[in-house]
């Protein structure tokens, strides 16, 4: 049980960055950004390669995050400047990223066990020495570091979304015509949002690779659906009434979701079924409000997941 909690917290916090990014695009901007399936392993691949090349793990993680931002910019430019459909733009970038990862790493995966990780470095900052710590102490320290980082990201995002610039992102998701009529170039807003969100996802991937000790081109598979599941869990359980609750709820949702996965593993449930179960749960969560209410006025009651549903195109016409 202890392991379940530790794993859940560790994974949940790492993927929490990604959940925040997905919240930003899918839920707040209403942009179904599929780039993230590629951005996540890209962040890992770039960070891993940087570490192997002798770059400090902290800088390597930042490079991983930045590579995510570049990927977001690619999708954003395709969509806003070249007028490529939003889903397709994301798919094109994600697909191209596959080549980039293979080129960067030179092979499909990079093991990092022989190198210092970002986490041991960070522990060093607090005067902790890896060789003198038990596994449990290491795990607690890792979780603490992640917690501080996620908290910082959460607070930063919360602050940003309340600035003049941040408001334009929320307004573009809420009523694009209106904010354009107030003098905002919404194309630039979308581009900016994609860069920020994918930077968070790249960071998530970079931290995941530092935590697990390797990067692999296949590690992005299914992460988007998992992140959407976390956003849904967060919004349903912890409430989407206010922006702050939403941001915090999504991180908690990510932790809860990862804890459930860890619990499933602990109970020896077949791990190969997890992606199918997650996909079905997401499908259910998005369509249940429609099915349940049938012909009755469904508009109002779906509003909680409304804009997520809208950007995923599952809304009943």
């Amino acid at each position, binding site marked *: 049980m202890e392991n379940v909690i530790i794993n859940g917290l560790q994974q949940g916090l790492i993927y929490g960055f990604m959940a925040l990014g997905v919240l930003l695009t899918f839920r707040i901007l209403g942009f179904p950004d599929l780039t993230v399936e590629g951005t996540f392993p890209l962040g890992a691949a770039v960070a891993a390669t940087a570490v192997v090349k002798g770059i400090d793990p902290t800088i390597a993680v930042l490079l991983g995050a930045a590579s995510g931002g570049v990927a977001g910019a690619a999708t954003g430019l395709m969509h806003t400047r070249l007028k490529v459909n939003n889903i397709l733009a994301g798919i094109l970038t994600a697909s191209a990223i596959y080549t980039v990862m293979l080129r960067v790493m030179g092979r499909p995966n990079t093991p990092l066990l022989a190198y210092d990780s970002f986490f041991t470095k960070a522990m060093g900052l607090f005067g902790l020495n890896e060789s003198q710590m038990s596994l449990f102490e290491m795990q607690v320290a890792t979780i603490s570091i992640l917690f501080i980082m996620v908290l910082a990201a959460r607070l930063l995002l919360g602050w940003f979304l*309340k*600035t*003049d610039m941040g408001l*334009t992102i929320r*307004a573009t998701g*809420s009523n694009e015509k209106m904010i354009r*009529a*107030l*003098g905002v170039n919404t194309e630039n807003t979308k581009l900016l949002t994609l860069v920020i969100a994918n930077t968070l996802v790249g960071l998530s991937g970079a931290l995941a690779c530092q935590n697990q000790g390797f990067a692999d081109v296949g590690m992005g598979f299914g992460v988007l659906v998992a992140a959407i599941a976390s956003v849904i869990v967060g919004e349903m359980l912890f409430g989407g009434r206010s922006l702050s609750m939403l941001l915090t709820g999504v991180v908690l949702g990510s932790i809860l979701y990862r804890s459930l996965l860890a619990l499933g593993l602990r109970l020896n449930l077949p791990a190969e079924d997890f992606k199918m179960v997650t996909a079905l749960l997401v499908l259910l969560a998005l369509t249940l409000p429609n099915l349940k209410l049938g012909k009755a006025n469904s508009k109002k009651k779906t509003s909680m997941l409304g804009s997520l549903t809208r950007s995923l195109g599952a809304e009943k016409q």
Partner: protein
Amino acid sequence: MIKLNNIYKYFFADTPNEVVALNNINLNIKEGDFVTVIGSNGAGKSTLLKAIAGVEMVDQGIIELAGKDVTSQPEHKRAREIGRIDQDPMASTASDMTIEENLAMAYMRGRRRGLLRAVTGGRTKRFKEVVADVGLGLENRLQVPVGTLSGGQRQALALVMATIAQPKLLLLDEHTAALDPKAAKQIMEITRKIVDTKKLTTLMITHNMEQAIKFGTRLIMMHRGEIILDINQQEKEKLTVPQLIEKFTNTSGTTFDDDRVLLAN
């Protein structure tokens, strides 16, 4: 303030369904003018406003705003100087966001939107004042999401938002048409008050002839993409609705076919 020279706008150009939505429009609106626009369904009124705002690009002609050629400027650039409200109360405000957030976005019209907090004590104080001026009690509900407001309240807020940054031009497209008569009357009074105190150059489409005569300093009537009547203030003051209908029939050679206009009397 705004000058339109030989404006043409076609829809479905070069097809059998071609529509000439704007047919050689020439219009010169002076600073401080409050122009009411009236005309039958499909006359091109909304298209005229959209062409000025840059929502629709024109196919021919030149549009000048405050002496500057803006014909090829995109909407978001022109919007720095132009406030605009639609008939749909959902269209001009963001329902997921609070009243003060909506106001903050409007307040920043035409300015750089940076990393300063959008809703601050100082701004809130100012928002309270301007919102209190419309007299709907919204000043005590600044933290409420706009989605919870009534249509009339939303349009009142939209009016404040369109004018808070002192635009060079205010465009109103039947902004009371979706409201019940009482709310519509209220919003018209608020409109008049704001336009007067801020001395805004305004173009207002209405389907209510009485309103078109009662409000504003100039009246234009459109028909099939053309301006067929242009009535100045002195003339307008003496005008009655039957006279206006008669003028329309004589000039256009058809009878006025907009049910809403006739019912509105």
